[in-house]
């Protein structure tokens, strides 16, 4: 059944299954779901959340003092105790394509340590604020855990997503010191 819309929200996810996994050797992108996962079923399966924010609204000369990613967790399955990692990553196109995935995260943007609470807002602070664009989008790729799962266990984290319409979709909060006003000197 169709969804009717004027555009697409900028919170998507992808799923990758290695050969012999439950999914088979497949890659897929989901535009109406936001799930990060890492688990073993047959072989290994991974999923990433992609977020994109229009940060060109920040003045070019502003000094960023802090930034937080706000997201609401709707579903958590925690069997291996994975933490959630975020890295700065802006896909070449939107929505992302399946090959934008990465097995491991650089975690240069944020970390949410395990255990991750379900049904609450999270607001981890972002590091490396210089990676937040002033003239374009800023992208984040969220990855759950590192390494290969050791057993037939599943970890997953679902964010509430925009098309759900609940008003709990992810957003970025950035604080900055404004650009100094131009001074006019008259002799």
């Amino acid at each position: 059944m169709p969804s009717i819309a004027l555009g697409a929200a900028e919170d998507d996810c992808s799923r990758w299954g290695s050969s012999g996994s439950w999914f088979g050797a497949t890659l897929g992108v989901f535009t109406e779901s936001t799930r990060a996962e890492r688990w073993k079923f047959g072989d290994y399966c991974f999923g990433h959340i992609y977020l994109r924010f229009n940060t060109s609204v920040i003045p070019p000369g502003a000094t960023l003092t802090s930034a937080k990613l706000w997201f609401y967790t709707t579903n958590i399955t925690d069997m291996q105790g994975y933490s959630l990692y975020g890295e700065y990553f802006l896909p070449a196109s939107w929505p992302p394509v399946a090959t934008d995935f990465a097995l491991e995260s650089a975690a240069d943007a944020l970390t949410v340590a395990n255990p991750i609470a379900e049904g609450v807002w999270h607001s981890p602070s972002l590091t490396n604020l210089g990676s937040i664009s002033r003239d374009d989008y800023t992208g984040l790729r969220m990855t759950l855990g590192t390494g290969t799962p050791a057993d037939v266990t599943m970890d997953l984290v679902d964010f509430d997503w925009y098309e759900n319409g609940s008003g709990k979709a992810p957003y970025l909060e950035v604080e900055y010191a404004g650009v100094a006003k131009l001074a006019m000197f008259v002799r």
Partner: protein
Amino acid sequence: MVINETSERVKIGPNKYRVTTAVGPRFYHDGIWKTIDPVPVLNSGWYEMTKNKFQVRQNAADASWEWTYRGKTVIGSFVGLGWLNISTKVRQIAAVPQTVTPVQTGNLLTWPGYFGAGLDLVWRYNGIGCKQEIVATQAGRASLGAPPWGAAGTAIVIVERLVLPSGALRYLEGEWDGVNPFETDSVIRLEDDGGILARFSIDKAYNEATPPAQVTLLKRLVLESGHIYLASGQRVSTLTTALGSGTWRLDPSIEVE
């Protein structure tokens, strides 16, 4: 202060500001910036979502709907569960939809048993549009009985008819002659004079069982009797296989016939 559809800025101190920016629109411009409210309001037999740059209303009695944007309206009504025969003609499984009373929970409208017992129609309103789902329970699958096309049959579809403003349809990300069935993997746009009037996304279906399984849906557009028919489903041999175990959500997909 609202900056654009997704962002606003507040002053938090001398020369200090906080900007919040979301992954989708939070505001719309109607002379001044206003906050989007995706919760439909019942008004004279119609559920209406009007606090946005587009308007949607849905008839409480039969779930037919109207989408209005840029002064043009697309009208949709459900024909019912059906299937495609070998010549890709829509054939109805049963005389559905049913006449049921919708239940509203915030931005969700649910017509329990709309497609038959255990086969609910769900509309989910959000800031950029509306999403339709059919949620099938075990009771719903059982109520459908044996599939009408037999073990060697073709497909399950959920059929919806669209009435478009005159001249509104240009297709789309690909070429469609408006006559022959069309299949696509991405997005179908209805355009009017170069502007997007509405957009239908074609996503995958998934099974909410553990682990969730992704399903490739049929994607086809067909024009029949002067109307465009939208449908979605999977190419399977039996209905029970198509609906699987647990609760299935057939997410956005399209066929037009």
